């Protein structure tokens, strides 16, 4: 089941129904048609459920039936494949990360400790993040299943929405979000009801913004470091230093260009493309990512993969995608295409925030005789072309 539902209760109901009937849930790296299509070719027996196809009319009947019934939770075997999360990688083919039931269950208990939830805490979560992405999946789907925490079905987006949904949520409340939304929230100046925590992940949160959020909302900001491969891995509180503190079930080994992670609840050891420096038992400093992997507003992308997609667009003779300011840009050689056509072609597979903007058409790329492209040459050409345009 490829579960694209954005309403968390619908998502949860569908997910649990799949688990109960031993059907695997697949969560694609993006909701673009191309990404979903790729999954179909790998899993030909899949079904897709999204907001248009979900039988919401039946849902109220279902809820009524459930509240009148005595439900016996079925015993789910530890090793039953429950979900597979996919991430875009540099090879072009998304990497699959299998999550058997026990990984989800034991991972959720580890997550609760990282989020500073005690066993009995019935924290009511409001989240801006989608349930398909690992961060949203762990917080708004798995925590309500395995702990006393709850999640609202709402999916607030703008600061005014976050305010309204939090006001409708009973205390104790917490906000689950990411730096892009938190920055917009702070700048909007809206008031929020009392919060126990603001949880943030998917990208680094600026230290000053974190402190400002704590002051304004009289709350604790907890930053989480994690990945689709490992789930939530480490946490950090604002008042302390920059060090990350890994969850107690993890064993870490820093390598030259990656971090090896193992834990009893993970099916096998995984490697994530982060450079870290261990500073003690289970504590580390984050030094950066593999240069190929970019993070735009919390979405991961591989420049190599995006480059490959660009060169596959019909009519594109040459091109390069690169980081520019906070986004991605592209220089493209395509005599018969315009920028809009190129972006449209990419948009079939690529998440909107990873689409290059601007796409600048040029006569040729500044390749060296070896065929290599030096970053400085690319940026210099980019600057020159834009200066001329004005």
């Amino acid at each position, binding site marked *: 089941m490829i579960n694209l539902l954005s309403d968390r209760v619908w998502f949860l109901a569908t997910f649990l129904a799949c688990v109960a009937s031993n059907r695997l849930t697949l969560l694609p790296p993006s909701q673009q048609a191309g990404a979903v299509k790729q999954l179909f070719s790998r899993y030909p027996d899949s079904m897709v459920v999204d907001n248009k196809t979900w039988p919401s009319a039946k849902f109220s009947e279902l809820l009524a039936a459930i509240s009148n019934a005595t439900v016996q939770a079925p015993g789910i075997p530890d090793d039953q494949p429950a979900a597979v999360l996919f991430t875009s990688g540099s090879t072009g083919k998304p990497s699959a990360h299998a999550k058997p039931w026990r990984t989800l269950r034991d991972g959720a208990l580890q997550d609760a400790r990282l989020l500073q939830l005690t066993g009995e805490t019935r924290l009511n979560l409001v989240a801006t993040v989608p349930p398909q992405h690992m961060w949203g999946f762990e917080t708004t789907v798995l925590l309500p299943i395995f702990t006393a925490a709850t999640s609202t079905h709402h999916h607030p987006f703008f600061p005014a929405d976050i305010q309204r949904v939090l006001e409708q949520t009973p205390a104790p409340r917490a906000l689950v979000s990411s730096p892009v939304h938190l920055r917009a929230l702070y700048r*909007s100046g809206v008031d929020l009801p009392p919060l126990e925590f603001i949880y943030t992940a998917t990208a680094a949160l600026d230290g000053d913004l974190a402190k400002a959020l704590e002051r304004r909302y009289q709350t604790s900001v907890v930053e989480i470091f994690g990945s689709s491969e490992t789930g939530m891995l480490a946490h950090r509180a604002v008042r302390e230093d920059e060090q990350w503190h890994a969850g107690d079930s993890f064993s870490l080994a820093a390598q030259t260009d990656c971090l090896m992670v193992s834990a009893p609840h993970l099916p096998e050891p995984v490697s994530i493309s982060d450079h870290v420096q261990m500073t003690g038992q289970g504590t580390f400093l984050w030094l950066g990512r593999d240069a190929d992997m970019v993070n735009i507003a919390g979405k991961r992308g591989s420049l190599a993969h995006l480059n490959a997609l660009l060169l596959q667009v019909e009519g594109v003779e040459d091109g390069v995608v690169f980081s520019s300011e906070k986004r991605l840009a592209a220089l493209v050689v395509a005599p018969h295409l315009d920028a809009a056509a190129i972006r449209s072609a990419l948009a079939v597979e690529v998440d*909107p925030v990873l*689409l290059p903007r601007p796409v600048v058409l040029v006569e040729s790329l500044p390749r060296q005789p070896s065929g290599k492209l030096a970053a400085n040459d690319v940026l210099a050409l980019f600057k020159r072309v834009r200066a001329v345009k004005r």
Partner: protein
Amino acid sequence: MHTNHMESQTEQERELAQLIIESLNLEDMRAEEIDPEEQLFGEGLGLDSIDALELALAITQRYNVQIKAEDENMKEAFSTLRSLTAYIASNSR
């Protein structure tokens, strides 16, 4: 981008177009180039969710209008420069 037949902008539309360009750092465009009937998000101008947040903030600061996604009219309001200008005009105090 449609360069052959473009609707002309009203003054308020031009002002909002300028705000869009400034708040979203669309350095390659000029305000006059945004077709009032062209889609803003996804296709057309190609804005995305990050832009939506940034733009909502700029609109609140300039026009004192709160943007809420759960407002029924919001999706339609954000579809083109023309519709967004009209939404702001009818919701300004």
